């Protein structure tokens, strides 16, 4: 199959070339916006769940340290929600799609995603750490002080391992994205 055969094969596809009416464009734009909002909302749901659980703990447990820890975790969840909102709104608007070449657009998207992943320890895991430390301290000393020491150590290690696992996975994904950015940069240097 030669070049022309390939191009003819591609161009022979039956496609629609009809423009949408302005009303349709407006209603579709609203529909897409609602979809983005819904997607963001589902991401916030986990934070809402955490907040509800720890509000219950404040009400259910009479121990000071656990209540302070629960309050700090709720504040941490609110910080995460605010950061999610900021990061979602930093995505390029459709109007910017035409003013950037595909290379610039693709690189900017990769950089945005890489930076968000590299900072996960700070904005996604970090805000929960003070609350978790105080809460676990309360569990070990106020709620069940007679429990075996080893049990507390194991529970703390498991929590720390989950947090480190989340950070490690995000660093690994960021490194893969960096590899793609490096390849793009190499392409750009080669063409200069």
């Amino acid at each position, binding site marked *: 199959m030669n070049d022309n055969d390939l191009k003819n094969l591609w161009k022979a*596809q039956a*496609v*629609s070339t009809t*423009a*949408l009416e302005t009303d349709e*464009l407006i209603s579709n734009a609203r529909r*897409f916006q609602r979809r983005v909002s819904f997607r963001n909302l589902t991401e916030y749901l986990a934070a809402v769940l955490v907040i509800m659980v720890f509000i219950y703990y404040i009400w259910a447990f009479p121990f000071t340290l656990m209540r302070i820890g629960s309050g700090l975790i709720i504040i941490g969840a609110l910080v995460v929600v605010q950061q999610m909102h900021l990061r979602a709104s930093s995505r390029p608007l*459709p109007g910017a799609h*035409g003013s950037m070449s595909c290379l610039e657009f*693709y690189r900017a998207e990769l950089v945005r995603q890489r930076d968000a992943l590299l900072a996960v320890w700070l904005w996604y895991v970090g805000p929960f750490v003070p609350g978790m430390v105080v809460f676990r301290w309360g569990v070990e000393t106020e709620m069940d002080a007679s429990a075996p020491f080893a049990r507390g150590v194991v529970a703390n290690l498991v929590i720390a391992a989950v947090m480190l696992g989340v950070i490690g996975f995000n660093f690994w994904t960021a490194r893969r994205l960096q590899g793609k950015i490096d390849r793009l940069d190499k392409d750009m240097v080669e063409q200069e």
Partner: protein
Amino acid sequence: MAEPPYSNTQTQTQTQNSRYQLAIASFGGDIARFTHGYEREPARRQELLQEVHVALWQSFAGFNEQCSLRTWVYRVAHNVGATHVQRNRRAVKGIELDVDEAGLVIDEQADIEITERRLDLERLLNLIHSLDALDREVILLYLEDLSAAAIGEITGLSSRNVATKVHRIKVLLAAQLGSGKEKS
């Protein structure tokens, strides 16, 4: 008599609408074909096409002829397509078609030539869907018969780099189409 304050906005909207209409009249078919390169499932492809139309229409609010209409339209289409792929990362279907599936197609169509073209198109699409975002854009623009210079303007790559990429992808494609035919 002073003009009403909204007249400027109305004129802008009219310009935006007329540019959109012109863009679709000139490049509507190209845009629709591009979406085949970014989504295999027909219902989702239709949704993507509408998304491209909306993004294009919205983008014309900021179009000041900083580049040609075609470059602008193609950039919007490909950047929306690339975003769609990133958002919906899924396993790429295998390069080869199932032999039974191919047999069924032959039975139904009873036309070997048409069936072969459909299989070739399937293989071509399989290859396109296995490519990275930038390589995918380059080959889609190449299939639309654009020159290396025009592809470079849209993608931001140099003509030389475009030519290298096209050559590399064509070698890959020839191998896929060749091996597909040997097996069928």
